[in-house]
């Protein structure tokens, strides 16, 4: 009896698992609302000393964004805008170098882009304590054949100065 119940349970579990798999297949593919994702993480720095905070971003697979220094003044550069925070003196933001990219339809036109992971560095001198710096990442994304209007991604840098 116990054995039968166990097997029946197993059968039900298998059926539910199968139904879920089929259900996932029927769901429409998810379209990213944002083409860049921010990985917020708690950081620690030495109080009163110049330290560098890191802001980690990831461009969604299949897309790229202009680097901070695109090769044309008409292209919109990726940039972080931060609001002033009490007890935090921020220095000029450091951006990584981009990589070369060209659309397959026009291999001669070279662009300077970020794709995959990229890290923006923020040098700070902070008073002891926990700090939150709010800001925005401004970027403009494209895929292999189309471009998407400029977007803003909210960013919050939380860190402790000891």
């Amino acid at each position, binding site marked *: 009896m116990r*054995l*039968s119940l166990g*097997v029946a349970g*197993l*059968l039900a579990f*298998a*059926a539910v*698992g*199968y139904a879920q*798999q*089929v259900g996932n*297949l029927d769901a*429409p*593919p998810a*379209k990213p609302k944002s083409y860049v994702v921010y990985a917020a993480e708690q950081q620690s720095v030495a109080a009163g000393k110049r330290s560098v905070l890191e802001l980690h971003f990831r461009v969604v697979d299949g897309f790229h964004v202009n680097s901070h220094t695109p090769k044309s003044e*008409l*292209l*919109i550069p990726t940039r972080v805008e931060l609001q002033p925070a009490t007890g935090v003196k921020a220095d000029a933001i450091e951006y990584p170098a981009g990589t070369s990219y060209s*659309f397959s*339809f*026009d291999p001669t*036109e070279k*662009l300077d882009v970020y794709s995959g992971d990229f890290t923006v560095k923020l040098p700070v001198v902070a008073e002891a304590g926990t700090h939150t710096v709010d800001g925005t990442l401004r970027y*403009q994304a*494209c*895929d292999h*054949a*189309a*471009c*998407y*209007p*400029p977007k803003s991604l909210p960013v919050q840098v939380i860190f402790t100065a000891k």
Partner: protein
Amino acid sequence: MKRSGLVLSVMVVGVALLLWAGWHNLRERKLAMQQAQENHVVLVPEKSGAATSGSAMQPDPQSPEAEATQMRGKVAPAFTLVTLDGKKVSLSDFKGRPVLVNFWATWCGPCKVEMPWFEEFQKQYASQGLEILGLADDVDAGKDAIAKVAQKTGVTYPILLTDGKVQKAYGGPDGMDYLPMSFYVDKNGVVVEETAGLGSKDEIEAHIKKVIASGATPAAGGQ
């Protein structure tokens, strides 16, 4: 004891069969989906009355492919916009002629790739009445930046400054989600083809030939 062992074996085999059937079904469906995606067939809503291609797959309504079917078969929304030099231009000015309405922006790389092609086709098919209108989606970039791109790409066809309404009329409540977007409007004012993103030069020319051929009257002969 022997009997319960037999029952257990039968049940284990049953479960294994069920799991195998589930996996097999899943694999088949995945393959079918991949095939459907490779065929790149997009359904056109029945309401539009346009010819549909057979496919059981409904595309993501927000994808560029789906967006490129929203206007097909419909009457192109009317608009009156201003050119870079302040001249008023309406879609109705070109009634009876095939018109390519192309939305672009200064920050859009693929747009700038196809603009010289449009210029070339404008000249090539002028005798068949073709008119190309370039609608700058990012008016906030300023006239100078828009003019600079037009000059750099060698465009001489009218560049119109969008008003916020025309993007919604052609792209939906949020305006243009992607650029470039092109609408091929025939002599009767009907959108016969719509494309999202950059296609090849050959594809664009094929769409131009289609829009020239479409409509009740024969070729306008360069009015």
